[in-house]
């Protein structure tokens, strides 16, 4: 899914900043998540040890990635799970549509899956006559409004309950207006249980795929994941190819750090391990389980030893919860499937660093994301790397769209700068003008306006440092 046009984060971010309701919704939610996470890690030594272990597990998985994927395929196949591979989102969509059509499936209930968002699966299926119903409460809420998730864990976090109350009363049949969260939840339960009962197929993501046992692990609180994967006769799971881990022992630490980092829970309500379709004597469970392994640019990210760390991500969302930018502009401003810091490094690598170059600059590089990341992804360092990739075409680099974010105006500015610095006379002249006349420049002149758009116009000193040095008798030695 390469973006065709340049998407400017600074424009959408500026618009988001003017929405006080949005800012209040995010501020409240992020503050809550930060303190809940903190409460789960009372001992800094334990936290660091768990991060080190989790990082090592994910790094080992990546080092052995091709081998583990083959092992996963073999184990799944032995268990009766059918494995499919897709290089692109288009391929994955076609594959899933093919599976559904071959079985005459018209309705699909979905557990939460960010990879399916990445594929824009719902829109694709709707266009081909299959109804795709989101069953995670947050996903259901935004699907009613035709919106996309604004957070990878809490998709409807940008809405408050008044907004949801209005929406339910308008869009759910026979629903009365109420702001009571329990009543709103009960309404969704009623609608969606009927959907689970009737659905022809279910779709889920995968939190961890275990190569040794051929097991798909699903982490959830609501039970919609279990409903989607156990009630309909067909279960399709989609995963990014980086989700594989060697063995089930490796999953326990990752699960422990995932729920604590994501929502500040020591454990989720359900941790569901799926190792096959309905067994010979079983009375329920899907008759068929399919696993779709998606690449979509991941193998390219994998090829770069530094950028590969991006693929360690376990999708906890802690980086966005702690990001001062995300907290203020919310998830939609990023105009990307994955918002926040992880999205800022993932999206440009998937869609092209040229069209999304604005994203890698939309960071103060404060480092909070890297500090809380449970698998120690050096997000700030990768942001800096991608800033360079956007404007340079290093021959060894495999980054999508490298060098295409270079602006002619920026290019000329640096050339001019270099020319002036190389010529002492010119430099002295330029400095003289800058110090005497710089303060009189209107804020809107080209180049200067890039600075003054969000900052106060600087007033240059009346004399340069070297002038003062000379006047005061200082020496360069």
């Amino acid at each position: 899914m390469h973006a065709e046009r340049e998407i400017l984060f600074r424009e959408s971010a500026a618009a988001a900043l003017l929405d006080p309701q949005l800012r209040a919704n995010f501020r409240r939610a992020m503050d809550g998540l930060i303190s809940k996470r903190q409460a789960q890690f009372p001992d800094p030594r334990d936290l660091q040890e768990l991060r080190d272990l989790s990082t090592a597990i994910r790094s080992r998985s990546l080092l052995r990635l091709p081998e583990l994927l083959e092992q996963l395929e073999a184990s799944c196949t032995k268990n009766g799970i059918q494995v499919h591979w897709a290089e692109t989102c288009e391929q994955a969509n076609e594959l899933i549509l093919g599976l559904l059509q071959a079985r005459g499936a018209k309705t699909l209930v979905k557990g939460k899956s960010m990879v399916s968002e990445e594929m824009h699966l719902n829109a694709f299926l709707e266009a081909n006559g299959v109804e795709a119903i989101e069953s995670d409460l947050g996903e259901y809420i935004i699907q009613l409004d035709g919106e996309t998730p604004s957070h990878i864990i809490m998709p409807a976090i940008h809405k408050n309950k008044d907004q949801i109350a209005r929406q339910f009363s308008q869009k759910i049949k026979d629903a009365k207006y109420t702001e009571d969260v329990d009543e709103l939840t009960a309404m969704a339960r009623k609608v969606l249980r009927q959907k689970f009962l009737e659905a022809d197929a279910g779709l889920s993501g995968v939190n961890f795929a275990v190569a040794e046992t051929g097991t798909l692990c699903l982490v959830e609180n609501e039970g919609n994941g279990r409903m989607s994967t156990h009630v309909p006769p067909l279960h399709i799971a989609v995963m990014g190819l980086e989700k594989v881990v060697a063995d089930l022992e490796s999953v326990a630490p990752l699960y422990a750090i995932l729920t604590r980092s994501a929502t500040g829970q020591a454990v989720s309500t359900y941790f569901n391990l799926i190792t096959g379709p309905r067994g010979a004597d079983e009375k329920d469970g899907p008759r068929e389980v399919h696993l779709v392994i998606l690449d979509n640019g991941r193998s390219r990210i994998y090829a770069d030893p530094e950028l590969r760390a991006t693929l360690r991500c376990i999708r906890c969302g802690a980086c966005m919860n702690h990001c001062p930018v995300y907290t203020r502009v919310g998830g939609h401003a990023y105009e990307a499937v994955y918002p926040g810091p992880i999205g800022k490094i993932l999206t440009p690598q998937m869609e092209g660093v040229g069209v999304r170059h604005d994203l890698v600059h939309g960071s103060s590089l404060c480092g909070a994301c890297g500090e809380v990341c449970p698998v120690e992804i050096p997000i700030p360092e990768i942001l800096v790397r991608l800033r360079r990739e956007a404007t340079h075409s290093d021959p060894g680099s495999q980054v999508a769209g490298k060098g295409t974010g270079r602006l002619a105006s920026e290019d000329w500015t640096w050339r001019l700068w270099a020319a002036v610095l190389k010529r002492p006379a010119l430099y002295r002249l330029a400095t003289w003008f800058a110090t005497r006349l710089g303060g009189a420049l209107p804020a809107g002149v080209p180049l200067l306006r890039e600075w003054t758009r969000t900052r106060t116009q600087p007033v240059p000193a009346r004399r340069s440092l070297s002038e003062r040095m000379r006047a005061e008798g200082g020496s360069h030695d």
Partner: protein
Amino acid sequence: MTDARTAILGRLRAGGGEGPLPPLDTAVMERRQWPPAERVARLRRGMEAVHTEFLDATPADWPAVVRAFCDREALPNLMFGPASEAGAALAAAWPAGGTQLLPYDRPVEAFKEELFTTVAAGFTGTVGGVAETGGLLLMPGPAEPRLLSLVPPIHLALLRASTLQDSLWHAVKALGWGRSLPPNALLISGPSKTADIEQTLAYGVHGPKRLIVVLVHDLA
């Protein structure tokens, strides 16, 4: 999609730098251990914090404790797996009248609608519990179908104190899950819940609204 498979694996092999695998120091997982009695208290605390309810029982009286709960709640019926050990014991001790015991003894397709609309509660055994965080370990299968612990609005689960593990990490090893797993195994720490509306916790969104643990105190 053999072509996609070949292309993807080819790219990964070409791009993968071989390096030494970083060591795994699992001490942080290993040291989460408690004496048996403390495990019970921890599990209970963890699960009660997320609205799980507990019924205390002995190895002899637990069927009566289940029955007393059903009477108290005036449940019209309780579904169970007749071929499971716990299910068989429950059925053997069930007095006639009152809450009707419904056996889950045929493929779900035969009564899916009924399961979703008229079954009031489901009863299952467990294969253990997790002390560190609180949680029940279940291995659904032919004797105890998967939906028994998911679809009915109340889930009653039998847990023997002697089967508690320190943590999920220890449980995976103790139960041999790392080597082979049935088609479905899971951990349940409470009733279904969500915080998707304004971070406000609400229980019973899709799965059971109530989780009742029948805790059999069988520690020596």
